[in-house]
């Protein structure tokens, strides 16, 4: 990825240089898959182990915000693809415009994510000392729930505790009710550890992507990217699509499984 698109010293031809950069990016994305892979594995195993707690916890996420973010991110992939296409077809002026659109959409995603995270703090479902999965079933106003949602929430937590108590009874616990409540809270905390770990890592990738986009926009306004030289746009585009695809997996796993629309 050279600023001017001229031949770098270690290469013989421009084709070789371009092929090298592109291969490098693909290899990097392979490592990224493995990087997220560890988290997905941890998620899968625990989802299998604690379906009740994970189902209830998944229901506590905001579907409209998550769904909205998915749309935003898919749109940003489209604008990113358009900027690559513009560069490849030498539409020099269009390149930075599409890139700015991508950056705006990416920032929107991060903004919505901030709102969501804030909500989790308000609802006491951030892992740590004050984690309390039953908080919203007891504090209607603090969680901003309608009467109906509040009733649903109470019902669900009650059923969750019962299910965990059932498990505890099978293991021969002396006071299954108490153990069940504690287990639900613990397993929900595990879910939210994974939620924050996975979405946090994804958000970090988005932030890095936004930084790269800023640089591309800056270079794009100089009219640097055209059919002859567009490697950075293409490679950062690959990265951006990769980060989108990660979200495409995160959204159903975290938000949709066991979601029951009331």
């Amino acid at each position: 990825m050279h600023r001017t698109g001229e031949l770098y010293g270690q290469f013989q031809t421009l084709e070789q240089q371009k092929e090298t950069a592109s291969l490098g990016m693909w290899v990097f994305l392979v490592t990224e898959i493995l990087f997220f892979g560890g988290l997905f594995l941890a998620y899968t195993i625990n989802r299998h182990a604690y379906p009740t707690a994970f189902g209830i916890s998944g229901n506590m996420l905001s579907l409209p915000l998550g769904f909205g973010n998915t749309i935003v991110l898919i749109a940003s992939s489209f604008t990113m693809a358009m900027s690559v296409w513009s560069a490849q077809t030498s539409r020099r002026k269009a390149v930075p415009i599409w890139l700015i659109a991508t950056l705006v959409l990416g920032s929107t995603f991060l903004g919505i994510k901030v709102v969501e995270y804030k909500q989790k703090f308000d609802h006491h479902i951030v892992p740590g000392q004050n984690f309390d999965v039953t908080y919203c079933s007891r504090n209607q106003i603090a969680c901003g729930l309608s009467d109906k949602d509040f009733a649903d929430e109470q019902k669900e937590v009650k059923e969750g505790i019962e299910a965990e108590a059932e498990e505890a009874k099978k293991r021969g616990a002396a006071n299954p009710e108490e153990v069940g409540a504690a287990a639900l809270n613990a397993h929900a905390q595990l879910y939210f550890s994974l939620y924050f770990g996975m979405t946090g890592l994804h958000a970090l990738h988005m932030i890095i992507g936004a930084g790269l986009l800023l640089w591309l926009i800056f270079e794009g306004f100089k009219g640097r990217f055209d059919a002859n030289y567009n490697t950075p746009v293409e490679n950062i585009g690959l990265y951006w699509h990769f980060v989108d695809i990660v979200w495409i997996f995160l959204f159903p796993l975290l938000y949709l499984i066991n979601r029951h629309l009331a």
Partner: protein
Amino acid sequence: MSTAPQALQGGEKLPKEHYLNATYGIRSWLLTTDHKRIALLYLISVTFFFFIGGIFASLIRIHLLTPGGYLVTPETYNKLFTMHGVAMIFFFLIPSIPAVLGNFLIPIMIGAKDLAFPKINLLSWYIYLVGGAFVLYSFATGGLDTGWTFYTPLSSIYSNSAVTPAVIGIFINGFSSILTGLNFIVTVHTMRAPGMTWMRLPLFVWAHYATSIIFILGTPVIAITLLLAGLERMFHFGFFNPAYGGDPILFQHLFWFYSHPAVYIMILPAMGVISEIIPTFARKPIFGYDFIAASSIGIAVIGFIVWAHHMFLTGQSTYSAVAFSFLTFLVAVPSAVKVFNWTSTLYKGSISFDTPMLYGLGFIGLFTIGGLTGLFLATLGLDIHLHDTYFVVAHFHYIMVGGAIMGYLGGIHFWWPKITGRLYPEYLARIAAIVLFIGFNLTFFPQFILGFLGMPRRYHDYPPEYQVLNVMSTAGASILALGYLLPMIYLTWSMRYGKVAGKNPWPATGLEWTTDSPPLTENFHETPVVDWEVYDFVHRPELGLQGSVSKKPAPAHGDD
């Protein structure tokens, strides 16, 4: 014994211009993108960590001289073996051959001017330094006592030592490995000179290609694993915490998914070095080139599916234990292919016992012992007895010290004339190699017996019955230390006072020996064109070997 190496016949001069004198000043080194200079920067930094790890090792051995543990407290002892492991594995063994020799040689061996991404190459060195700084900070502020394996929940909840900075340091350092592996893979794919086909690549390059596959597929997994353990420690997330229903065994699975292949990161490049040394000093094409190349890839692939043999005693299901035991036996096959091919190369060769060859032969013997004892441990019934004993310690030191470090030192000696343009004192170097071999065996062979008798690893104390063997081991360690100090001294000395080596002092067949010693910054005066088969001594009259010109057409690889 063959004729004396060319350089000893005198008359060689250093080239006027080379990568060492192309530019001067501290900036020209710290901001260099020349793979050869970056290799030297790595050489200095990994040597630094080798000595840090070595100091801890010495303290461990002195402590174990007597039963009862008088030198340090049990807590300090825990920290000593942990810091020994962390420094040696993450900051010496893993980067040693790839980042030093691989960095220096791969572009020259394939006829390129540099690696594909020279700036990323420099970046990876800086990442290594930052990671190293975090780890040194951890060492300096009390050290850590979790063992290099960082098993949860000890590392994430219970340990009161400086685990967090060490975990951050190793996490950061992982990206240095990833970038090095990425650079090598892309370089081998796109930067080869005309005529340098895949089947003409030196086996050193094949070995590094296989290593790089592990780098890019394995290292991200250890990065995320340590990140999760770190998050658990810092923010009370619950991934591996049983109190939240998390599974500590999951940590072990993820950890060994990287850390078992990491063993092959350490040994594969050393195997690559040996595959260069053996044909050179047997004056014979390597036997079964294709098989050695393929076995490197085979080890990298199968190495990824054997990890749970570290966990036979965690209560995993019998079926999975049997499967992992079988797969572990399977991964021994490509390693054995290499050993058989090296010995077949020696057969009827014209062998000379130069220093690199001594290391090479030492490697074959020690690696064979280390590899075969690995099979003892892969045997389910026996592993119950040997698990977490000194037998395991001896086994992996035979692989890592007897294998990887022998290979590393052999490679350093073999290519030292190329790196510095000068020869080391041969006589002294042979003595050092022999001292090392004796010291190594005296240190670690008694540990096999100790382990078999039942002495557990990681204990600061032992019953008096074990003292004789422990004294032998400590005595060996002091000889071993001498064996490491000697090359340090004479190699440094030779940089200024050694005999000038010339292009190809051994002579060897690789492309790197056709350019100046030390090479130009661009490696070659003009882009080389390769029109000879790999390891072919017969059709290379310029090597100056007797009977080198032949009318026969070029033979197939390997068997001549």
